[in-house]
Protein backbone atom coordinates (compact mmCIF):
# COMPACT_ATOMS: atom_id res chain seq x y z
CA UNK A 1 0.00 0.00 0.00
CA UNK A 2 2.64 2.46 1.07
CA UNK A 3 4.79 1.72 -1.93
CA UNK A 4 1.96 2.54 -4.33
CA UNK A 5 1.26 5.68 -2.49
CA UNK A 6 4.75 7.06 -2.31
CA UNK A 7 4.91 7.24 -6.07
CA UNK A 8 2.04 9.64 -6.23
CA UNK A 9 2.48 13.33 -5.65
CA UNK A 10 0.30 15.20 -3.21
CA UNK A 11 0.76 18.30 -5.26
CA UNK A 12 -2.45 19.08 -7.04
CA UNK A 13 -2.82 22.80 -7.61
CA UNK A 14 -5.61 23.19 -5.09
CA UNK A 15 -3.85 21.31 -2.36
CA UNK A 16 -1.02 23.71 -2.74
CA UNK A 17 -3.14 26.78 -2.76
CA UNK A 18 -1.86 27.83 0.60
CA UNK A 19 1.72 28.02 -0.67
CA UNK A 20 2.54 31.55 -1.61
CA UNK A 21 5.11 30.87 -4.30
CA UNK A 22 2.72 28.71 -6.30
CA UNK A 23 -0.48 30.52 -5.66
CA UNK A 24 -0.11 33.20 -8.30
CA UNK A 25 -2.82 31.66 -10.44
CA UNK A 26 -5.08 30.63 -7.58
CA UNK A 27 -7.57 32.72 -5.70
CA UNK A 28 -5.73 32.34 -2.45
CA UNK A 29 -2.40 33.95 -3.09
CA UNK A 30 -3.83 37.37 -2.86
CA UNK A 31 -4.67 37.66 0.80
CA UNK A 32 -4.23 40.86 2.73
CA UNK A 33 -1.00 41.88 1.09
CA UNK A 34 -2.41 42.49 -2.39
CA UNK A 35 -5.80 43.83 -1.58
CA UNK A 36 -6.22 45.88 -4.70
CA UNK A 37 -9.33 45.36 -6.75
CA UNK A 38 -7.61 45.04 -10.10
CA UNK A 39 -5.50 42.20 -8.91
CA UNK A 40 -8.51 40.28 -7.68
CA UNK A 41 -10.44 40.86 -10.86
CA UNK A 42 -7.68 39.16 -12.79
CA UNK A 43 -7.54 36.30 -10.35
CA UNK A 44 -11.28 35.82 -10.51
CA UNK A 45 -11.15 34.73 -14.12
CA UNK A 46 -9.45 31.46 -13.13
CA UNK A 47 -12.64 29.96 -11.68
CA UNK A 48 -16.32 30.17 -12.58
CA UNK A 49 -17.87 33.46 -11.57
CA UNK A 50 -20.93 33.82 -9.40
CA UNK A 51 -24.31 33.59 -11.17
CA UNK A 52 -25.43 37.19 -11.83
CA UNK A 53 -28.66 36.95 -9.80
CA UNK A 54 -26.79 36.11 -6.59
CA UNK A 55 -24.00 38.52 -7.42
CA UNK A 56 -26.47 41.40 -7.89
CA UNK A 57 -28.28 40.57 -4.67
CA UNK A 58 -25.01 40.48 -2.81
CA UNK A 59 -23.64 43.78 -3.94
CA UNK A 60 -27.04 45.32 -3.26
CA UNK A 61 -27.02 43.87 0.26
CA UNK A 62 -23.58 45.35 0.89
CA UNK A 63 -24.83 48.80 -0.02
CA UNK A 64 -27.87 48.35 2.21
CA UNK A 65 -25.72 47.15 5.10
CA UNK A 66 -23.50 50.21 4.85
CA UNK A 67 -26.64 52.34 4.90
CA UNK A 68 -28.18 50.46 7.85
CA UNK A 69 -25.02 50.93 9.88
CA UNK A 70 -24.51 54.59 9.08
CA UNK A 71 -26.71 55.70 11.97
CA UNK A 72 -25.79 53.15 14.62
CA UNK A 73 -23.36 50.37 13.93
CA UNK A 74 -24.28 48.56 17.14
CA UNK A 75 -27.96 48.26 16.23
CA UNK A 76 -29.78 45.03 15.53
CA UNK A 77 -30.59 46.34 12.06
CA UNK A 78 -26.90 46.81 11.29
CA UNK A 79 -26.04 43.27 12.46
CA UNK A 80 -28.98 41.77 10.55
CA UNK A 81 -27.96 43.62 7.40
CA UNK A 82 -24.37 42.35 7.54
CA UNK A 83 -25.63 38.90 8.40
CA UNK A 84 -27.57 38.97 5.14
CA UNK A 85 -24.34 39.88 3.34
CA UNK A 86 -22.63 36.88 4.95
CA UNK A 87 -25.49 34.58 3.99
CA UNK A 88 -25.40 35.71 0.36
CA UNK A 89 -21.60 35.53 0.22
CA UNK A 90 -21.78 31.93 1.40
CA UNK A 91 -24.53 31.20 -1.14
CA UNK A 92 -22.39 32.78 -3.88
CA UNK A 93 -19.43 30.63 -2.89
CA UNK A 94 -21.56 27.47 -2.92
CA UNK A 95 -22.96 28.41 -6.32
CA UNK A 96 -19.41 28.83 -7.68
CA UNK A 97 -18.41 25.44 -6.27
CA UNK A 98 -21.42 23.86 -7.91
CA UNK A 99 -20.54 25.43 -11.26
CA UNK A 100 -16.99 24.19 -10.95
CA UNK A 101 -18.18 20.69 -10.15
CA UNK A 102 -20.49 20.59 -13.14
CA UNK A 103 -18.09 22.21 -15.56
CA UNK A 104 -16.74 18.94 -16.98
CA UNK A 105 -19.59 16.98 -18.62
CA UNK A 106 -17.62 13.71 -18.56
CA UNK A 107 -16.91 14.01 -14.84
CA UNK A 108 -20.57 14.71 -14.24
CA UNK A 109 -21.69 11.76 -16.33
CA UNK A 110 -19.21 9.44 -14.64
CA UNK A 111 -20.36 10.44 -11.20
CA UNK A 112 -23.78 9.11 -12.06
CA UNK A 113 -22.63 6.20 -14.25
CA UNK A 114 -19.33 5.00 -12.82
CA UNK A 115 -19.78 1.46 -14.21
CA UNK A 116 -19.82 2.48 -17.89
CA UNK A 117 -16.87 1.82 -20.21
CA UNK A 118 -15.96 5.45 -20.74
CA UNK A 119 -15.77 6.01 -17.00
CA UNK A 120 -13.51 3.11 -16.23
CA UNK A 121 -10.20 3.85 -14.51
CA UNK A 122 -7.28 1.46 -14.31
CA UNK A 123 -4.77 0.71 -11.60
CA UNK A 124 -1.76 1.15 -13.82
Amino acid at each position, binding site marked *: *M*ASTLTNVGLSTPAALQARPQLAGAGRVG*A*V*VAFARRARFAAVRASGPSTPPDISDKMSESIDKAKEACAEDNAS*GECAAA*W*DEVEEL*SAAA*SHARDKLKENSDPLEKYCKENPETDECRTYDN
Partner: protein
Amino acid sequence: MAISSLHATTSLHSPCTTNTSFRQNQVIFFTTRSSRRGSTRHGGARTFQVSCSVDKPVVIGLAADSGCGKSTFMRRLTSVFGGAAEPPKGGNPDSNTLISDTTTVICLDDYHSLDRTGRKEKGVTALDPRANDFDLMYEQVKAIKEGKAIEKPIYNHVTGLLDPPELIQPPKIFVIEGLHPMFDERVRDLLDFSIYLDISDEVKFAWKIQRDMAERGHSLESIKASIEARKPDFDAFIDPQKQYADAVIEVLPTQLIPDDNEGKVLRVKLIMKEGVKNFNPVYLFDEGSSITWVPCGRKLTCSYPGIKFAYGPDTYFGNEVSVLEMDGQFDRLDELIYVESHLSNLSTKFYGEVTQQMLKHADFPGSNNGTGLFQTIIGLKIRDLYEQIIAERAGAPTEAAKV
Protein backbone atom coordinates in the same frame (compact mmCIF):
# COMPACT_ATOMS: atom_id res chain seq x y z
CA MET B 1 -5.99 4.42 -8.79
CA ALA B 2 -5.30 1.36 -6.65
CA ILE B 3 -6.48 3.68 -3.99
CA SER B 4 -10.06 4.00 -5.06
CA SER B 5 -10.55 0.30 -5.59
CA LEU B 6 -9.26 -0.38 -2.11
CA HIS B 7 -11.61 2.21 -0.86
CA ALA B 8 -14.68 0.40 -2.13
CA THR B 9 -14.10 -2.60 0.05
CA THR B 10 -14.26 -0.59 3.23
CA SER B 11 -17.36 1.39 2.44
CA LEU B 12 -20.63 0.71 4.14
CA HIS B 13 -23.42 0.35 1.68
CA SER B 14 -26.95 1.15 2.60
CA PRO B 15 -29.16 -1.90 2.64
CA CYS B 16 -31.98 0.36 1.47
CA THR B 17 -30.56 0.61 -2.01
CA THR B 18 -30.49 -2.27 -4.41
CA ASN B 19 -26.86 -2.89 -5.04
CA THR B 20 -25.81 -5.49 -7.52
CA SER B 21 -22.15 -5.55 -6.62
CA PHE B 22 -22.10 -6.67 -3.01
CA ARG B 23 -18.67 -7.48 -1.78
CA GLN B 24 -18.01 -9.55 1.26
CA ASN B 25 -16.63 -6.78 3.40
CA GLN B 26 -19.62 -4.62 2.77
CA VAL B 27 -22.15 -7.12 3.90
CA ILE B 28 -20.66 -7.95 7.25
CA PHE B 29 -23.17 -6.26 9.37
CA PHE B 30 -26.20 -7.02 7.25
CA THR B 31 -25.41 -10.65 7.74
CA THR B 32 -25.49 -10.17 11.46
CA ARG B 33 -28.85 -8.53 11.20
CA SER B 34 -30.35 -10.99 8.80
CA SER B 35 -29.40 -13.98 10.90
CA ARG B 36 -31.12 -12.32 13.80
CA ARG B 37 -34.25 -11.42 11.90
CA GLY B 38 -34.17 -14.30 9.49
CA SER B 39 -35.34 -16.69 12.14
CA THR B 40 -38.34 -14.61 13.02
CA ARG B 41 -40.05 -13.26 9.96
CA HIS B 42 -37.99 -12.83 6.89
CA GLY B 43 -35.20 -14.35 4.95
CA GLY B 44 -32.65 -13.43 2.36
CA ALA B 45 -32.66 -10.15 0.57
CA ARG B 46 -36.02 -9.09 1.90
CA THR B 47 -34.61 -8.81 5.36
CA PHE B 48 -32.39 -6.00 4.16
CA GLN B 49 -35.42 -4.07 3.05
CA VAL B 50 -37.15 -4.46 6.37
CA SER B 51 -34.19 -3.79 8.59
CA CYS B 52 -33.59 -0.66 6.57
CA SER B 53 -36.79 1.00 7.74
CA VAL B 54 -36.33 -0.21 11.29
CA ASP B 55 -32.74 0.98 11.67
CA LYS B 56 -32.40 3.88 14.00
CA PRO B 57 -29.97 6.46 12.77
CA VAL B 58 -26.88 7.50 14.66
CA VAL B 59 -27.13 11.27 15.02
CA ILE B 60 -24.10 13.55 14.68
CA GLY B 61 -23.98 17.31 15.25
CA LEU B 62 -21.53 19.66 13.55
CA ALA B 63 -21.40 23.29 14.63
CA ALA B 64 -19.53 26.16 13.01
CA ASP B 65 -20.03 29.66 11.79
CA SER B 66 -20.97 30.30 8.19
CA GLY B 67 -18.01 29.99 5.84
CA CYS B 68 -15.84 27.99 8.22
CA GLY B 69 -15.51 24.72 6.37
CA LYS B 70 -18.58 22.69 7.32
CA SER B 71 -19.23 21.57 3.75
CA THR B 72 -15.65 20.43 3.23
CA PHE B 73 -15.81 18.50 6.48
CA MET B 74 -19.08 16.88 5.40
CA ARG B 75 -17.59 15.83 2.08
CA ARG B 76 -14.67 14.24 3.90
CA LEU B 77 -16.99 12.49 6.35
CA THR B 78 -19.30 11.01 3.72
CA SER B 79 -16.25 9.93 1.73
CA VAL B 80 -14.97 7.87 4.67
CA PHE B 81 -18.24 5.97 4.54
CA GLY B 82 -17.92 5.49 0.81
CA GLY B 83 -19.81 7.20 -1.96
CA ALA B 84 -20.31 10.86 -2.67
CA ALA B 85 -23.05 12.92 -1.08
CA GLU B 86 -25.50 14.49 -3.51
CA PRO B 87 -28.50 16.78 -3.19
CA PRO B 88 -31.81 14.85 -3.21
CA LYS B 89 -32.55 13.83 -6.79
CA GLY B 90 -35.52 15.51 -8.44
CA GLY B 91 -36.13 17.81 -5.50
CA ASN B 92 -35.78 21.52 -4.94
CA PRO B 93 -32.51 22.55 -6.61
CA ASP B 94 -31.88 24.91 -3.70
CA SER B 95 -32.25 22.13 -1.11
CA ASN B 96 -29.48 22.21 1.51
CA THR B 97 -29.59 18.46 2.12
CA LEU B 98 -26.89 16.03 1.02
CA ILE B 99 -27.59 12.33 0.74
CA SER B 100 -25.17 9.45 0.30
CA ASP B 101 -25.66 5.71 0.69
CA THR B 102 -25.22 5.80 4.44
CA THR B 103 -25.45 9.41 5.43
CA THR B 104 -27.92 12.26 5.21
CA VAL B 105 -26.65 15.71 6.10
CA ILE B 106 -29.19 18.43 6.81
CA CYS B 107 -28.50 22.11 7.28
CA LEU B 108 -30.06 23.62 10.38
CA ASP B 109 -30.75 26.90 8.56
CA ASP B 110 -33.82 24.99 7.37
CA TYR B 111 -35.24 25.59 10.85
CA HIS B 112 -35.15 29.36 10.54
CA SER B 113 -38.43 30.64 11.94
CA LEU B 114 -37.84 34.08 10.47
CA ASP B 115 -37.00 34.43 6.81
CA ARG B 116 -34.64 37.12 5.53
CA THR B 117 -37.29 39.83 5.49
CA GLY B 118 -38.53 38.80 8.93
CA ARG B 119 -35.06 39.02 10.41
CA LYS B 120 -34.47 42.38 8.83
CA GLU B 121 -37.75 43.77 10.20
CA LYS B 122 -37.04 42.54 13.70
CA GLY B 123 -33.33 43.41 13.53
CA VAL B 124 -32.12 39.92 14.45
CA THR B 125 -29.39 37.85 12.78
CA ALA B 126 -29.66 34.17 11.84
CA LEU B 127 -27.29 33.52 14.74
CA ASP B 128 -29.97 34.69 17.17
CA PRO B 129 -32.07 31.86 18.67
CA ARG B 130 -35.16 34.02 18.07
CA ALA B 131 -34.70 33.47 14.34
CA ASN B 132 -34.78 29.68 14.75
CA ASP B 133 -37.50 27.17 15.59
CA PHE B 134 -35.88 24.86 18.13
CA ASP B 135 -39.17 23.10 18.93
CA LEU B 136 -39.52 21.91 15.35
CA MET B 137 -35.80 21.08 15.17
CA TYR B 138 -36.12 18.94 18.29
CA GLU B 139 -39.29 17.20 17.14
CA GLN B 140 -37.85 16.34 13.74
CA VAL B 141 -34.42 15.20 14.91
CA LYS B 142 -36.18 13.07 17.52
CA ALA B 143 -38.50 11.57 14.89
CA ILE B 144 -35.53 10.69 12.64
CA LYS B 145 -33.74 9.17 15.60
CA GLU B 146 -36.80 7.01 16.20
CA GLY B 147 -36.64 5.88 12.58
CA LYS B 148 -39.50 8.03 11.27
CA ALA B 149 -39.47 10.10 8.08
CA ILE B 150 -39.96 13.86 8.36
CA GLU B 151 -41.23 16.72 6.20
CA LYS B 152 -38.45 19.19 6.78
CA PRO B 153 -38.73 22.82 5.70
CA ILE B 154 -36.17 24.21 3.25
CA TYR B 155 -34.58 27.58 3.82
CA ASN B 156 -33.60 28.98 0.44
CA HIS B 157 -30.28 30.80 0.81
CA VAL B 158 -30.66 32.56 -2.52
CA THR B 159 -34.16 33.99 -2.09
CA GLY B 160 -34.08 34.12 1.72
CA LEU B 161 -37.51 32.48 1.84
CA LEU B 162 -38.80 29.24 3.32
CA ASP B 163 -39.59 26.85 0.48
CA PRO B 164 -42.09 23.95 0.63
CA PRO B 165 -40.78 21.08 2.78
CA GLU B 166 -38.89 18.02 1.53
CA LEU B 167 -39.32 14.43 2.70
CA ILE B 168 -36.33 13.09 4.62
CA GLN B 169 -36.09 9.36 5.27
CA PRO B 170 -34.13 8.10 8.26
CA PRO B 171 -30.61 7.19 7.08
CA LYS B 172 -27.97 5.14 8.89
CA ILE B 173 -26.12 8.26 9.90
CA PHE B 174 -27.94 11.54 10.27
CA VAL B 175 -25.82 14.67 10.48
CA ILE B 176 -27.19 18.01 11.55
CA GLU B 177 -24.83 20.80 10.60
CA GLY B 178 -25.23 24.48 11.14
CA LEU B 179 -25.05 27.28 13.61
CA HIS B 180 -26.93 25.71 16.54
CA PRO B 181 -26.76 21.90 16.73
CA MET B 182 -25.78 22.02 20.41
CA PHE B 183 -27.67 25.14 21.49
CA ASP B 184 -30.93 23.56 22.61
CA GLU B 185 -30.52 21.05 25.41
CA ARG B 186 -33.19 18.72 24.00
CA VAL B 187 -31.51 18.56 20.59
CA ARG B 188 -28.09 18.22 22.20
CA ASP B 189 -29.24 15.17 24.15
CA LEU B 190 -30.20 13.44 20.91
CA LEU B 191 -26.65 13.62 19.55
CA ASP B 192 -24.50 10.51 19.62
CA PHE B 193 -21.45 12.61 18.80
CA SER B 194 -20.81 16.31 18.37
CA ILE B 195 -18.12 18.39 16.71
CA TYR B 196 -17.36 22.10 16.85
CA LEU B 197 -15.16 23.86 14.28
CA ASP B 198 -13.49 26.70 16.13
CA ILE B 199 -11.90 29.12 13.70
CA SER B 200 -9.83 31.90 15.25
CA ASP B 201 -10.64 35.47 14.24
CA GLU B 202 -7.43 35.88 12.24
CA VAL B 203 -8.02 32.75 10.21
CA LYS B 204 -11.72 33.50 9.74
CA PHE B 205 -10.78 36.88 8.31
CA ALA B 206 -8.21 35.34 5.95
CA TRP B 207 -10.66 32.66 4.79
CA LYS B 208 -13.42 35.15 4.12
CA ILE B 209 -11.03 37.30 2.12
CA GLN B 210 -10.20 34.26 0.02
CA ARG B 211 -13.86 33.51 -0.43
CA ASP B 212 -15.26 36.99 -1.00
CA MET B 213 -12.66 39.39 -2.33
CA ALA B 214 -13.39 38.49 -5.94
CA GLU B 215 -17.08 39.29 -5.47
CA ARG B 216 -18.40 42.51 -6.90
CA GLY B 217 -19.18 44.96 -4.13
CA HIS B 218 -16.96 43.30 -1.54
CA SER B 219 -13.83 44.93 -0.18
CA LEU B 220 -11.57 44.37 2.80
CA GLU B 221 -13.73 46.87 4.68
CA SER B 222 -16.99 45.08 3.90
CA ILE B 223 -15.57 41.71 4.90
CA LYS B 224 -14.28 43.15 8.14
CA ALA B 225 -17.56 45.00 8.82
CA SER B 226 -19.55 41.83 8.29
CA ILE B 227 -17.43 39.79 10.69
CA GLU B 228 -17.54 42.56 13.30
CA ALA B 229 -21.28 43.17 13.06
CA ARG B 230 -22.04 39.47 13.53
CA LYS B 231 -19.50 38.96 16.31
CA PRO B 232 -21.65 39.87 19.35
CA ASP B 233 -24.30 37.31 18.36
CA PHE B 234 -21.63 34.81 17.41
CA ASP B 235 -20.01 35.14 20.85
CA ALA B 236 -23.33 34.97 22.63
CA PHE B 237 -25.00 32.07 20.82
CA ILE B 238 -22.57 30.05 18.70
CA ASP B 239 -19.22 30.04 20.48
CA PRO B 240 -20.55 28.73 23.85
CA GLN B 241 -21.62 25.49 22.15
CA LYS B 242 -18.01 24.31 21.99
CA GLN B 243 -18.10 23.35 25.66
CA TYR B 244 -20.58 20.58 24.80
CA ALA B 245 -18.67 19.19 21.81
CA ASP B 246 -17.06 15.75 21.99
CA ALA B 247 -14.41 16.96 19.55
CA VAL B 248 -13.32 20.50 18.75
CA ILE B 249 -11.12 21.37 15.78
CA GLU B 250 -9.43 24.68 16.59
CA VAL B 251 -7.80 26.53 13.70
CA LEU B 252 -5.15 29.11 14.57
CA PRO B 253 -2.39 31.03 12.80
CA THR B 254 0.96 29.25 12.68
CA GLN B 255 3.65 29.72 15.29
CA LEU B 256 6.34 28.44 12.95
CA ILE B 257 6.61 31.73 11.11
CA PRO B 258 7.10 34.73 13.41
CA ASP B 259 4.29 37.32 13.07
CA ASP B 260 2.55 35.44 10.31
CA ASN B 261 -0.87 36.92 9.70
CA GLU B 262 -1.64 35.68 6.23
CA GLY B 263 -3.51 32.57 7.34
CA LYS B 264 -1.75 30.39 4.79
CA VAL B 265 0.07 28.15 7.22
CA LEU B 266 -2.13 26.93 10.05
CA ARG B 267 -1.79 25.52 13.52
CA VAL B 268 -4.68 23.15 14.12
CA LYS B 269 -5.70 21.54 17.40
CA LEU B 270 -7.90 18.50 17.79
CA ILE B 271 -9.45 18.59 21.25
CA MET B 272 -10.99 15.25 22.15
CA LYS B 273 -13.15 14.74 25.22
CA GLU B 274 -12.21 11.82 27.43
CA GLY B 275 -14.78 9.28 28.58
CA VAL B 276 -17.14 9.66 25.64
CA LYS B 277 -18.87 6.38 24.87
CA ASN B 278 -17.55 4.66 21.72
CA PHE B 279 -14.92 7.36 21.14
CA ASN B 280 -11.29 6.66 21.91
CA PRO B 281 -9.04 9.68 21.32
CA VAL B 282 -6.11 9.50 18.94
CA TYR B 283 -2.69 9.70 20.55
CA LEU B 284 0.92 10.26 19.67
CA PHE B 285 3.51 7.70 20.89
CA ASP B 286 2.36 7.30 24.49
CA GLU B 287 -1.23 7.70 25.56
CA GLY B 288 -1.64 10.35 28.26
CA SER B 289 1.90 11.75 28.13
CA SER B 290 2.84 15.22 26.95
CA ILE B 291 4.89 15.20 23.78
CA THR B 292 6.25 17.66 21.25
CA TRP B 293 7.39 16.10 18.02
CA VAL B 294 9.14 17.53 15.01
CA PRO B 295 8.99 14.74 12.43
CA CYS B 296 11.40 16.55 10.12
CA GLY B 297 14.97 15.42 10.67
CA ARG B 298 17.28 12.72 9.41
CA LYS B 299 14.55 10.35 8.27
CA LEU B 300 12.19 12.89 6.83
CA THR B 301 13.09 16.10 5.09
CA CYS B 302 10.50 18.85 5.17
CA SER B 303 10.45 22.16 3.40
CA TYR B 304 9.97 25.52 5.11
CA PRO B 305 8.35 26.17 7.58
CA GLY B 306 8.32 22.48 8.54
CA ILE B 307 5.88 20.49 10.65
CA LYS B 308 5.49 20.38 14.39
CA PHE B 309 3.21 18.16 16.43
CA ALA B 310 2.18 18.31 20.06
CA TYR B 311 0.09 15.95 22.13
CA GLY B 312 -1.00 15.77 25.71
CA PRO B 313 -3.75 15.77 28.31
CA ASP B 314 -5.50 19.03 29.21
CA THR B 315 -8.76 20.40 30.56
CA TYR B 316 -11.29 22.17 28.37
CA PHE B 317 -14.29 23.88 29.99
CA GLY B 318 -13.79 21.69 33.05
CA ASN B 319 -13.67 18.47 31.02
CA GLU B 320 -10.71 16.16 30.69
CA VAL B 321 -9.49 16.16 27.14
CA SER B 322 -6.63 14.93 24.97
CA VAL B 323 -5.22 17.49 22.59
CA LEU B 324 -3.36 16.70 19.38
CA GLU B 325 -1.86 19.66 17.58
CA MET B 326 -0.31 20.06 14.18
CA ASP B 327 1.45 23.22 13.03
CA GLY B 328 2.68 23.56 9.45
CA GLN B 329 1.80 21.75 6.28
CA PHE B 330 2.51 18.63 4.30
CA ASP B 331 4.36 19.28 1.09
CA ARG B 332 4.99 15.74 0.06
CA LEU B 333 3.17 12.49 0.42
CA ASP B 334 5.89 10.71 2.38
CA GLU B 335 5.50 13.34 5.12
CA LEU B 336 1.85 12.45 5.50
CA ILE B 337 2.53 8.71 5.55
CA TYR B 338 5.30 9.19 8.08
CA VAL B 339 3.00 11.15 10.36
CA GLU B 340 0.15 8.66 9.98
CA SER B 341 2.41 5.77 10.91
CA HIS B 342 3.33 7.49 14.19
CA LEU B 343 -0.23 8.20 15.33
CA SER B 344 -2.16 5.58 17.29
CA ASN B 345 -5.85 4.82 17.76
CA LEU B 346 -6.74 6.21 14.35
CA SER B 347 -9.59 3.73 13.76
CA THR B 348 -8.33 3.02 10.25
CA LYS B 349 -9.15 -0.31 8.60
CA PHE B 350 -5.80 -0.64 6.87
CA TYR B 351 -2.37 0.95 6.93
CA GLY B 352 -2.39 4.23 5.05
CA GLU B 353 -6.13 4.88 5.11
CA VAL B 354 -5.76 8.44 6.44
CA THR B 355 -3.24 9.23 3.71
CA GLN B 356 -5.48 7.62 1.12
CA GLN B 357 -8.46 9.73 2.15
CA MET B 358 -6.40 12.94 2.18
CA LEU B 359 -5.02 12.11 -1.23
CA LYS B 360 -8.39 11.24 -2.65
CA HIS B 361 -9.56 14.75 -1.87
CA ALA B 362 -6.34 16.64 -2.43
CA ASP B 363 -8.44 19.28 -4.17
CA PHE B 364 -10.42 20.08 -1.01
CA PRO B 365 -9.22 23.03 1.04
CA GLY B 366 -6.92 22.00 3.89
CA SER B 367 -5.73 18.72 2.42
CA ASN B 368 -2.14 19.63 3.14
CA ASN B 369 -2.57 20.73 6.75
CA GLY B 370 -4.08 19.88 10.12
CA THR B 371 -7.63 20.82 9.13
CA GLY B 372 -7.79 18.07 6.50
CA LEU B 373 -5.88 15.62 8.68
CA PHE B 374 -8.09 16.08 11.73
CA GLN B 375 -11.33 16.17 9.74
CA THR B 376 -10.33 12.86 8.19
CA ILE B 377 -9.46 11.39 11.58
CA ILE B 378 -12.81 12.50 13.01
CA GLY B 379 -14.52 10.94 9.99
CA LEU B 380 -12.82 7.63 10.82
CA LYS B 381 -13.76 8.02 14.47
CA ILE B 382 -17.41 8.53 13.51
CA ARG B 383 -17.32 5.41 11.36
CA ASP B 384 -15.89 3.52 14.33
CA LEU B 385 -18.51 4.93 16.68
CA TYR B 386 -21.26 3.99 14.24
CA GLU B 387 -19.99 0.44 13.91
CA GLN B 388 -19.76 0.08 17.68
CA ILE B 389 -23.31 1.33 18.15
CA ILE B 390 -24.61 -1.05 15.47
CA ALA B 391 -22.72 -3.97 16.99
CA GLU B 392 -24.08 -3.08 20.40
CA ARG B 393 -27.65 -2.97 19.09
CA ALA B 394 -27.23 -6.27 17.30
CA GLY B 395 -26.16 -7.81 20.58
CA ALA B 396 -28.98 -6.34 22.62
CA PRO B 397 -32.12 -8.49 22.40
CA THR B 398 -34.44 -5.79 23.78
CA GLU B 399 -33.57 -3.51 20.89
CA ALA B 400 -33.87 -6.33 18.41
CA ALA B 401 -37.39 -7.20 19.47
CA LYS B 402 -38.62 -3.72 18.59
CA VAL B 403 -39.99 -3.60 15.07
